[in-house]
């Protein structure tokens, strides 16, 4: 469903991403790994429309989408989380989820002011969907808290829930396990697998936690200094000499 061909991104003299290709099939978890500064987040920024890539193609469900503005890409069904959690901190947890469902709501101002039946119905549906996902990530009791007051692990889960209420086809997670304790990481592991199995979402995952990556990925892409280094199943990657060298050899 997602195909990336020869993607490159140049910042002035720095070629942060250089000829990266990857593809993601339906109901698949594909990971991108690589050392710090390898260009993983930059790849995400190109895919989600924050940057306009300087070269290459991004094809989502048969459409070329490179250079499409960010807010339109998410409407196509590709949403992402951020390496540093980005919540609407002064809004409540539910409100965060309602904002995300903007597209599913009746945004006609007159309908809203008059409170027409169609408006109320969609608003209620959005609330129910929010309640469902809050329950799913264990935050239902905190629904009316300010998002900024949540614990770090809870914020991470809220960010994923906020993506899921948009009913995406493809979910991009940038280091979702960063800062979580082992128990939380294990929960996250189960959640991501369930997103794939139960909700038919494809996942692109950037992660440093190797146990998580090896555990749940269907395929892994390794990039190093912006260049693709290897790709394959977890088993192949584990035994790939180039990868071992990049991670261990130079140390």
């Amino acid at each position: 469903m997602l195909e990336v061909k020869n993607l490159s991104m140049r910042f002035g003299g720095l070629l942060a991403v250089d000829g990266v290709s990857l593809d993601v099939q339906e109901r698949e978890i594909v990971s991108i790994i690589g050392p710090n500064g390898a260009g993983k987040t930059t790849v995400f920024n190109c895919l989600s429309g924050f940057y306009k890539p300087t070269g290459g193609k991004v094809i989502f469900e048969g459409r070329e989408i490179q250079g499409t503005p960010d807010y339109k890409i998410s409407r196509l069904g590709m949403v992402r989380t951020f390496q540093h959690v980005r919540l609407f901190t002064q809004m409540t947890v539910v409100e965060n989820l309602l904002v995300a469902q903007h597209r599913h709501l009746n945004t006609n101002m007159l309908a809203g002011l008059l409170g027409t039946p169609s408006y109320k119905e969609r608003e209620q549906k959005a609330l129910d969907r929010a309640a469902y996902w809050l329950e799913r990530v264990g935050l239902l009791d905190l629904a009316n808290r300010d998002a900024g007051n949540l614990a770090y692990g809870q914020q991470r889960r809220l960010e994923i829930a906020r993506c899921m209420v948009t009913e995406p086809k493809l979910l991009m997670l940038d280091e979702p396990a960063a800062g979580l304790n082992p128990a939380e990481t294990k929960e996250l592991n189960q959640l991501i697998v369930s997103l794939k199995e139960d909700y038919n979402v494809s996942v692109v995952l950037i992660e440093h936690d190797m146990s998580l990556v090896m555990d749940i990925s269907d395929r892994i892409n390794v990039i190093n200094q912006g260049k693709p280094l290897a790709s394959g199943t977890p088993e192949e990657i584990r035994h790939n000499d180039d990868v071992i060298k990049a991670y261990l050899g130079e140390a």
Partner: protein
Amino acid sequence: MAANNMRHALFCAIVTLIISFPILGLSLEAKGVNITLSGAKTSTYVAIVLAAVAVFVFQTFRDTFMGALGKLPNFNPLAGREPMEQTKRVKLESWLLTGIVVFALFWPFLVSRGSVDLATLVLIYIMLALGLNVVVGLAGLLDLGYVAFYAVGAYTFALLSQYTGISFWMALPIGALLAGLTGMILGFPVLRLRGDYLAIVTLGFGEIIRILLNNWTTLTGGPNGIGGIPEPTLFGMEFGRRVKEEGNTSFHETFGIAYSGEHKVIFLYLIALVLAVITALIIRRFMRMPVGRAWEALREDEIAARSLGLSRTAVKLSAFTIGAFFAGFAGTVFASKQGFISPESFVFLESAIILAIVVLGGMGSQLGVILAAIAVTILPELAREFSEYRMLIFGAAMVLMMVWRPQGLLPVRRIQITLNKQG
């Protein structure tokens, strides 16, 4: 340390002398064609020296003073109280709001004409502040040229009445819509700007509109302004002693009561009250609607908002347009109340005062904004004897507010939503 302070203090005192002596101590007087330089009164010199001494003392013991200022929050009369329970506060606030409105309905019949006139002004400021609150408080866009939209509303009515003889009730929607349109047009170029840059550009826009009104003499009458703006009518009944417009009747004759100038003032007050309540209700509703949540999301984190499919253009423009719309509303009422407008009513200070109301009230909170509008408009009137020190008192009040309650009189409370547990 002490020696260091001493040197610094001496330096500051000398600077004070150097600056204030030529400004206060010397005066130029025109004597026929010549200008002569003369000294000021002895008391002025004494004052200058005293000021220098005060600066010296303050700077020497600066650390002590600043330390005391830091303890100021402890004297805060409100400090150390438990915040009220959410549900209780919601109830209290809505009771209070209803109470204020009911009281406001009967109040004009009890007090003098001057007070009613002042109260009308308060209501106009409430409308303005509620509208600006959308832009600044909710959408987080610092707009320093808000008065421009107020001017558009007022001038729309003034010009239309001058050239086409339009009535207040027709002008009200037209003025508001035109102001909203102006808001949208001015919104386009500043879409990409944030924070300080946005503030500077909107400040410029405000000034451009005022200067345009001032200089386009053929249309707007320039600094002379436009007069003869009609008052509102009640179902075709005029409130003047004699009917001006053909086909209208007069209020006092219809009801067979004696003419009184107060009728007109009270009627205008009631219109302003109704409009202010409508403004508050509509904006309150907006805050619970998708568009209101989008404004806040954009304020909180623009990148996250965009990543979820919110279009920055649509969200920002809607905030500017709706904010400007209510300024146009207020402008029309203002023009009708004054009967005469000139660019002087739409200077930057107005923008600053409206912004101060929003900030004092606690960005985003409606009851707070209403209380702040009352305070900011009425306090200077009560303290007439101190009118020279008005700005000084205003500034001091702002500083104390920032020390004691940086979140404003009544910080926003989030809307609580009950969810039904799913499956």
